[in-house]
């Protein structure tokens, strides 16, 4: 398939999602508020801690706001693009509805991952970005256009890592028939992305910085805005994204080979 065909399929799915969302406008507003409130909870925690301390692992309040904003931005984009699709995949494999995707004229992984978009996830992404921009302003930073472009590229790498880790764990459904617990696990692990790397030591550093690059996903882009581009860190992020994508795709295709239709 050519790139233009992928784009056309994605646009058709996006259009369907938007039309459907607009049919349930009240629900859309409520879910947008839900996402907004949860963002407020995360920022509220930082605000309260900094009422009583000046620094967390060397990071000041606005540095932390930038870090948390970056984490929320990646999470919002994940919610908007992939969240529903991946969790529906878990359900579909269990019920046999997954056959529907196998019968579609396109690569299975692409069809599974991009069928729907969630507008409420996207709606809060500009707010998360606004937090980052406001924090940069409060810090007196004036990032160059190159820094912003690099930041955007790093956010996409972060999105790829989140997508890949989620796909990796949900693909377990091909073996264990249920992806229950993955959602809770994702949110529990994602909390670590709101920590400064300097706060993690010992085994926590090995697990959350190197093995699962959750901390890198947010710390490297935020540091790029704070201190400029560090090529070594940029390569680390890109490498982690490539590695996790490869692992997730491999896991998905291995699982696909095991899939036997459950429908009649």
């Amino acid at each position, binding site marked *: 398939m050519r790139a233009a065909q992928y784009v056309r399929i994605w646009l058709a799915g996006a259009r369907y999602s938007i039309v459907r969302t607009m049919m349930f406008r009240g629900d859309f507003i409520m879910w947008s508020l839900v996402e907004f409130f*949860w963002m407020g909870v995360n920022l509220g925690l930082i605000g309260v801690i900094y009422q009583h301390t000046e620094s967390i692992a060397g990071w000041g309040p606005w540095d932390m706001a930038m870090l948390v904003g970056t984490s929320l931005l990646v999470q919002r984009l994940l919610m908007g693009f992939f969240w529903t699709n991946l969790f529906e995949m878990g359900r579909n494999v269990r019920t046999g509805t997954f056959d529907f995707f196998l019968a579609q004229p396109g690569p299975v992984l692409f069809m599974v991952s991009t069928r729907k978009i969630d507008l409420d996830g996207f709606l809060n992404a500009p707010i998360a970005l606004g937090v980052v921009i406001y924090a940069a302003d409060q810090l007196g930073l004036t990032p160059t256009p190159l820094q912003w472009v690099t930041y955007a590229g790093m956010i996409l790498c972060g999105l790829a890592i989140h997508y890949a880790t989620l796909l990796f764990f949900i693909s377990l459904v091909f073996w264990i028939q249920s992806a229950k617990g993955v959602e809770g696990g994702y949110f529990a692990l994602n909390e670590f992305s709101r920590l400064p790397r300097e706060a993690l030591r010992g085994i926590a550093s090995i697990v959350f910085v190197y093995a699962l690059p959750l901390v890198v996903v947010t710390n490297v882009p935020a540091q790029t805005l704070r201190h400029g581009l560090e090529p070594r860190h940029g390569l680390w992020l890109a490498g982690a994204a490539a590695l996790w994508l490869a692992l997730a795709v491999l896991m998905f295709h291995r699982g696909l080979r095991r899939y036997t239709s459950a429908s009649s």
Partner: protein
Amino acid sequence: MSLAKYRHAFVLGLQGNLVYRWNFAVRASLSLLHLAYVFILWGAAFTGQETLAGFNLSQTLTYFITILVLQFFISAMNEDYEVSEEIRNGLINQFLLKPIHYFSYRFSIFVAARLVSGSLALIPLLLALPLLWPHLEYPTDTWTYVAAVPALILSAFLQFTLAYCFGLLTFWFLEIQSFIILSLAVETMLGGQVFPLDLLPAPLYELSSYLPYYYQMYFPAALLTGRIATPEAAIQGLGIQLFWVLALYGVAQFLWLRGLRRHTAVGG
């Protein structure tokens, strides 16, 4: 005789919830990840200072460990969805024809569910106890524990009643999940699950102490961890907590009666 039926509901609740023992165990294990995050964040916040708002690091970590345990023993988890599903699927009709008080029936199952989830949550916590033990610092005043007993019972009642009220909204709305998650965000913040509420600026803390969320989780946890300073403050807190329990029970009864007027039982 009238209590026997709720005892049976309790036993059925125990059996039903034991089926989901692995779900609870997984959930409890994941909460240890959250605890690790809390330890790292607050450990970093305490670097270079002995106390934060008058409490040291161990006291703060003890607060979060207590909150985590209480969540599995007194929090409402799926009760709102269960009530909602019974209304939506028409399963509630059977209770309308029988001499059973629906609130008490659901509450019996809630107590059974928390007994199961609380007991299972203790397993990973006990396994992690060697790591947690050095950070545990509980108060030595007896009155805090005496006051904590009614506070815990009232908190469980408050948690359940609020969830029950949200479930009853299904009489008016087809989809209540967004209401529940929205309320959860507010409860998480104002219930002291994200940070101890006494870290809030004084006027905001004062304001929060008049809201029901304060008594859902923070109040019993604060009593157990020595964050409520005097017996007078504890008695005042228990009074406000009792008020909210009665008020929310009144709201629940009102929603039930008004909801039934809108309800249509279909089928044979």
